[in-house]
């Protein structure tokens, strides 16, 4: 069948073949002016005719020309078109210069396959590190925001090292991982985020695994967005793949040595604090009380208040009263100016047969929160050598160690014994609280707060004492052997291992509100290891005239091991000693040991016809240890095609330079987690051993012994267009991705005897558009150039099927209100929460006895956290060595529930609630609180509300902020942001001839300089991008997290 297809294609396109006459032959080589590498696929044409050819893999061409042919045109997408007059010489060698942004470059696709982008039938985006490192951003992923269409990046908090969530083309799994697979130098790089404490009630800003990767060592990052692009990576590729090549793992052929030193420094601050009112202090309804709500009397209405009780007790010399005055800086004074310092050196060198590269980097980031930091040290070394003719050995080794120190974040409104968030009250302190007073009791060491004890820990005390320290050591190595069997057949073997050690300690210190003030320790140690081996045979040959086959067949195996051990110690005996030996009792806190294995066989065949029609067929068969034996082997194919219409039709003019159409369809199979088939009877650990007696229970998760693999199917169409001498480039992609028979742990009715069922159920569809636009609006001969790179991302997710006819399933329990849920026909993870009763016309119903709203007994959908669309725009102005670059990102829509905004309004601390000295009537009609129906007058008409309430009541109670239905805490997260602004100058090379420096670039950069969120209460200045749940699937819920960061930095890059 395949053969027939090829033959048909051949016959069809044979008619379009170029005609030429025989006279003399011009030969030559086309090289890139940048690095001197040969350029295959360059179109060489005689001007004014259809006569032409393309260069071969070595960049060579040969063209027979008639005597009347005068001029040759060399064109290549991504390069400036070159025109040469045919002279006497039969040799014309050409060096081509890069133009604008190179769409048509060679990219690394799945399994290390290098392909020209024009051959690809699907969307991939390659990002060079120079696009990223101008941002003073210790987190490489975060600086991708807005630069790649189809990719959504959200950060969890402004704490150093905190995780960043990246999703490609939406969320396709109900409960599983939705983030892409990271492949570094051919080996998977685990991006686990090991959470120790529950973020609902005060947990850390835990880093994700990818944070151990040194951005300075990255040579390229290729994002394989769809199933067709990623399928060869197998099971974990259904969320897309980020393929990273490191400098050390891919040392390039260079003679001599080159040393690059990069040094950067940035200062960081909390990005935005609310505009606080400084007219009213603590209390309620204009009456002073030592409350954590600034609804009290005006500052000019009384002189003093009783000394705060904890301070009175700790410092009797303070006397009975303190002045009643505003403390305008009591919040901003808590924070400091943090910094980021990063230094890196890369040394590369080699000779004819051997190349090596080493990168060593040091990153230090002290956050704006006192005592928070992220430090990373890494060394990566790699190289390759030609052992003998055709046999190449390469390998690399990387070691990274990082330390993250930070406080506890999240909600504090929980009575549970172990909870203490440092941000519980930090941003809505009563306006008269003096936070410059000592925060530690000099005798007991206890946290001192103005309305303590027990309400919250003083943030300064908390940051100093309640720390979470995470050490990570990551060791990566890989070796590869490459053998050229014949001209057209290669064999390659790759073996790699990635080992991750995490050691974490969480401290609740003596004197905290949590743990009864007695302190506790949690140790959480994790080791993960992943081994991957791949064997590949590659075939590369012209099959017939004009038809080329580039094929791979391979075999890969993978093993993943996780060993985790966590213990909990309660009551610290001696102060300031944080070891389990110093606790009164130690109990297990959960440990897991798991191992999974998989092997797969795959093929990839790419046929090309005349360099303008490409057809790619892939397939992979996996066998996994995690599935039942009868279902553990599964196959999934893929198909893609690329058609360069402009080349096929021989269109060549100044308007249309390039036009490509592409289409693909692929399927990706995925296995289950380990140990989710066989019934277990877990030992009870909560409260057990109970008075010394052990217990065992029937697992509350029902397992499915007939589990089958889950499949994602994706259809994708796209086009790449270059216009006006490549000054306009557009790539547009549409996709439709459906993940069905998901392997999920679904919630089932408890009355079945189980809370959860691990089985195949449900389906999610993600459909969307991705547009990338590369523009050169201005370009002058004097070297001035203005470039715009804009992206547009729109993904619409829809839950198309839920398990067994359920109306909805809950994504995660959290506090219950609001909670993210799945409903058929609705987008991913919509928010469901409490609402107030309304009449049939949507008017609010008012409780006649209070003048306030009536809480409905039913929950409803209150928001959709998925953004409507994302846009990013990178502007670059360059002139000689100068470059000005700024990045604007825009997120349209998407809702989020913000505990912070609710608290800022409800506590009456911002200028939003400053005008409060009159009463209000909530627009609405009287209703019956029992039935939720409107009350009717004698004529059967609804009765308008005329009951007055105070401004205080509008924000505290059955109204619109604290203690209100959660629908009022939901805000539209639309935000326009100036993400980055940088100015750089590259010293011209000619000025450096007298010193031993070959390149020197200095960059000034500002990060997250400004944002505008039109739907956020004005004076809260709240940044809607902060997500409370890190990189989990829970999105659009924020519980008192650390606000985002603003940075100003300078970076120096020197090449020796």
């Amino acid at each position: 069948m395949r053969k027939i297809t090829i033959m048909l294609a051949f016959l069809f396109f044979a008619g379009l073949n170029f005609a030429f006459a025989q006279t003399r032959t011009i030969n030559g080589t086309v090289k890139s002016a940048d690095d001197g590498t040969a350029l295959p696929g360059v179109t060489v044409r005689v001007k004014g005719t259809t006569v032409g050819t393309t260069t071969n893999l070595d960049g060579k061409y040969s063209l027979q020309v008639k005597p009347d042919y005068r001029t040759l045109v060399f064109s290549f997408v991504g390069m400036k078109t070159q025109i040469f007059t045919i002279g006497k010489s039969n040799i014309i060698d050409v060096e081509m210069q890069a133009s604008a942004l190179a769409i048509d470059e060679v990219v690394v696709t799945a399994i290390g396959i290098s392909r020209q982008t024009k051959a690809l039938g699907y969307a991939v985006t390659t990002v060079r590190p120079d696009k990223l490192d101008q941002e003073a951003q210790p987190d490489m992923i975060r600086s991708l925001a807005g630069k790649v269409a189809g990719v959504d990046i959200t950060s969890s908090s402004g704490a150093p090292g905190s995780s960043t969530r990246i999703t490609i083309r939406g969320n396709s799994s109900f409960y599983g991982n939705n983030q892409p697979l990271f492949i570094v130098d051919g080996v998977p790089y685990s991006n686990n985020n090991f959470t120790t404490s529950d973020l609902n009630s005060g947990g850390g800003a835990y880093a994700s695994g990818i944070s151990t990767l040194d951005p300075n060592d990255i040579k390229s990052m290729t994002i394989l967005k769809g199933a067709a692009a990623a399928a060869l990576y197998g099971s974990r590729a259904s969320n897309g793949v980020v393929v990273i090549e490191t400098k050390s793992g891919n040392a390039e052929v260079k003679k001599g040595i080159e040393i690059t030193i990069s040094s950067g420094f940035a200062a960081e601050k909390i990005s935005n604090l609310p505009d606080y009112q400084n007219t009213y202090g603590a209390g309620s309804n204009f009456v002073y009380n030592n409350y954590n709500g600034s609804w009290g009397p005006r500052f000019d209405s009384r002189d003093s208040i009783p000394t705060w009780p904890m301070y009175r007790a700790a410092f009797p010399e303070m006397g009975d009263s303190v002045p009643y005055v505003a403390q305008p800086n009591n919040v901003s004074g808590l924070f400091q100016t943090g910094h980021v310092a990063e230094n890196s050196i890369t040394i590369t060198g080699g000779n004819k047969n051997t190349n090596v590269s080493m990168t060593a980097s040091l990153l230090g980031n002290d956050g704006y929160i006192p005592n928070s930091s992220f430090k990373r040290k890494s060394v990566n070394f790699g190289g390759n050598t030609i052992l003998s003719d055709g046999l190449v050995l390469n390998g690399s080794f990387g070691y990274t160690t990082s330390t993250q120190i930070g406080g506890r974040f999240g909600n504090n409104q929980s009575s549970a014994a172990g909870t203490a968030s440092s941000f519980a009250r930090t941003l809505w302190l009563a306006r008269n609280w003096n936070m410059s007073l000592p925060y530690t009791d000099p005798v007991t060491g206890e946290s001192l707060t103005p309305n303590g004890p027990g309400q919250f820990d003083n943030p300064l005390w908390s940051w100093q004492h309640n720390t979470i320290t995470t050490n990570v050591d990551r060791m990566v190595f890989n070796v590869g052997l490459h053998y050229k069997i014949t001209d057209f057949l290669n064999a390659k073997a790759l073996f790699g291992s990635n080992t991750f050690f995490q050691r974490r300690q969480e401290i609740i210190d003596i004197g905290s509100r949590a743990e009864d003030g007695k302190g506790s320790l949690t140790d959480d140690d994790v080791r993960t290891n992943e081994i991957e081996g791949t064997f590949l045979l590659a075939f590369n040959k012209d099959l017939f005239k004009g038809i080329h086959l580039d094929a791979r067949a391979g075999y890969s195996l993978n093993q993943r091991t996780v060993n985790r051990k966590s213990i909990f110690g309660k009551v610290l005996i001696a102060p300031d000693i944080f070891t389990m030996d110093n606790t009164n009792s130690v109990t297990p806190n959960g440990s897991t040991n798991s191992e999974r294995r998989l092997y797969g066989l795959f093929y990839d065949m790419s046929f090309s016809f005349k360099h303008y029609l490409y057809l790619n067929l892939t397939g992979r068969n996996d066998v996994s240890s995690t599935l039942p034996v009868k279902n553990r082997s599964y196959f999934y194919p893929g198909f893609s095609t690329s058609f360069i219409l402009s080349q096929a039709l021989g269109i060549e003019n100044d308007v249309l330079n390039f036009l490509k159409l592409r289409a693909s369809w692929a399927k990706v199979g995925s296995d289950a987690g380990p140990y989710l088939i066989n019934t277990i009877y877990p030992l009870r650990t909560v409260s057990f051993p109970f008075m010394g007696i052990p217990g065992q229970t029937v697992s509350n998760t029902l397992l499915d012994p007939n589990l089958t693999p889950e499949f994602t199917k994706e259809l994708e169409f796209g086009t790449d267009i270059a216009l006006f001498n490549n000054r306009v480039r557009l790539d547009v992609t549409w996709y439709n991705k459906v993940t069905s028979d998901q392997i999920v742990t679904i919630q089932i009715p408890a009355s079945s005897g189980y809370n959860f069922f691990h089985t195949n159920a449900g389906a999610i569809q993600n459909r969307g558009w991705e547009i990338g636009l590369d523009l050169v609006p201005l370009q002058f001969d004097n070297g001035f150039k203005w470039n715009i790179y804009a992206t547009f991302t729109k993904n619409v997710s829809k839950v198309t099927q839920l398990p067994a006819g359920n109306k909805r399933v809950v994504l995660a329990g959290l506090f219950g209100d609001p909670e993210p849920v799945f409903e058929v026909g609705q987008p991913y993870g919509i928010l469901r929460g409490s609402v107030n009763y309304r009449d049939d016309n949507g008017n609010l119903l008012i409780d006649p006895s209070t003048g306030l709203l009536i809480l409905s007994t039913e929950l409803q959908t209150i928001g959709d956290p998925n953004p409507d669309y994302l846009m990013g725009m990178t502007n670059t102005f360059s002139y000689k060595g100068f470059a000005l670059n700024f990045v604007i990102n825009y997120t349209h829509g998407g809702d989020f529930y913000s505990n912070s905004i609710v608290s800022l309004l409800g506590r009456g601390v911002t200028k939003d609630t400053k005008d409060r000295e009159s009463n209000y009537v909530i627009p609405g009609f009287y209703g019956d609180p029992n039935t939720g129906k409107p009350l009717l007058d004698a004529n059967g008409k609804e009765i308008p509300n005329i009951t007055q309430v105070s401004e205080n009541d509008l924000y505290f109670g059955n109204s619109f902020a604290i203690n209100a239905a959660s629908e009022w805490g939901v805000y539209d997260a639309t935000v326009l942001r100036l993400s980055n602004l940088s100015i750089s100058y590259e010293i011209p090379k000619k000025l450096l001839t007298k010193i031993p420096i070959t390149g020197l670039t200095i960059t000034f950069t500002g990060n997250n300089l400004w944002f505008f969120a039109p739907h956020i209460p004005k004076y809260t200045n709240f940044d809607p991008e902060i997500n409370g749940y890190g990189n989990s699937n829970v999105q659009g819920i924020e519980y008192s997290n650390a606000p985002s960061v603003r940075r100003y930095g300078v970076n120096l890059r020197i090449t020796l």
Partner: protein
Amino acid sequence: MMKNIKFISFLAIVLLFAGCQKGWLDINNDPDQPTVAKVDLLLPSAEQRMANDLSIGYQNLGYKAGVYIHQIVTRESLDKYGISGGDITFWDDLYARPIPDLDKIIEIGKEKDYMQYVGVAKILKAYVYSQMVDLWGSIPFSQADSIGIESPVFDPGAAIYPSLLKMIDEGIADITNSTAVNEFKPSDNDLIYKGDMDKWVRAANTLKLKLYDQVRLTPMFDPTAVNALLAGKLIEEGGDFMMWFGTSTNPDDRNPGMADEYSGSQISTYISPWFFEILKGMNPNILTGINDPRIPYYWCNQSGGVTEASPEYMDGDFVSIYFGSDGIHRDAGGRSTFTMVGFYPCGGRYDDGKFTGTLGAADATGDAPMRFITYPDRLFIEAELALEQGIGSDARTHFEDALTASFKLIDNIIDGSATTQTIPHLSGTTAVTDYITAVMADYDAATKDKQFELIMTEKWIQHWGSSIDSYTDYRRTGYPIMFDANSNNGLQSGGPNGSGPVPTSCSRGYVVAFPYPNTELDLNVNAPKQRSITTDKVFWDVNN
């Protein structure tokens, strides 16, 4: 040739590391979890979980019922009868923890002929289901916890009760089965009776008596069966059906009512001023002028601590908040000023009047038991049956015995507790004798209705910390009379500093049964619509 040798050796290396041995993929068994269940480990797990879920631990089922019998006040959504399907979390726990554990014991026990385990499991299962019927009315029963049924149907409470009575009878028969092998028997791992089978039989019979009492106004009532039970083995003094907790904080095996409250840094369980004033003799309607000697055992004041924000309700050192408050201080904090739950309900501190500072975990042990059915309960039930149904002997005697036993129960808990506090015994003291005399004088002077109100009020007082049966008693008898936030039917004091009651209101009606949890309604395709919690009553609630 050289080339070929290299290639062959290269291939060999590749195939070596790639070569999958047989069984390379057969590694899908969790090394850390048992695949076999054992009855002796399942039993303590089921008992502990049942006690936990029904306790007055913060937001546990007993806590919620405690709010609606006006012994506990809370600030969250439960206030003003605002309970909704999102507040119900322990339904899921009861169905997915103790019941499957008990079913597994029955399954294994029957197979291996460990009939004592089977019998105990059946009695416990009947008890758990009866509590669930009392809270929710119709619930999944006949198809619940059955393999292959993901969405069990809901059975009416009136259909479940007879099955429970039968299940108890089977349980008794299994326990007393003299031909059973019983290679293993419950012993110290039985957290309730340490394997004492006679006590299990008495508990089972008293449970039956309690269920008959609860349905006495319905056609299900069976005087013959009741008479047989009264003549048989019932719970005796010292044989209370209850489960002791421990004193360890790590793992935390303390009574959840104490653990949540004393270790937490906020107060969540406020003592109802209504409850307080009745025990103080301040209520104009009932027990007026009679001071209850149990007060220092019931709650503990924090005196001499840091003065915090103005409280809503303050009477001497007793500080609390109101149900349905509209007062301006309703949300004021006060970790070190509010009165806390005391020794009797959950192992908190006995109020010896000497405590200064802020109560914390170190000030109490938390080992007081979760009481399911006590000896005083039996006597109160007998008093009710005698007074209202004319069954058994004199109601007055039973009532007086119940009062005496209520004090003795506290003494027994003092004796069983590991507390280091010196807690005086109550029985036989002048205060107690005077109290009983005064109550009986009221009883003797009262109409029959008022006598019944006194019995139910005293039962309610005795039940402090074990709220669900009081919630059931109130709904089926209308007694004791509860606080009405709209009219304030009798609260005397207020605060701060006696400044009088603060405004209260409640625009919702009384909650006659708990709402179903949203999870069950969302997930169970056979679930009914959410009930109207103010009108949709449990089948025995026929008293209007």
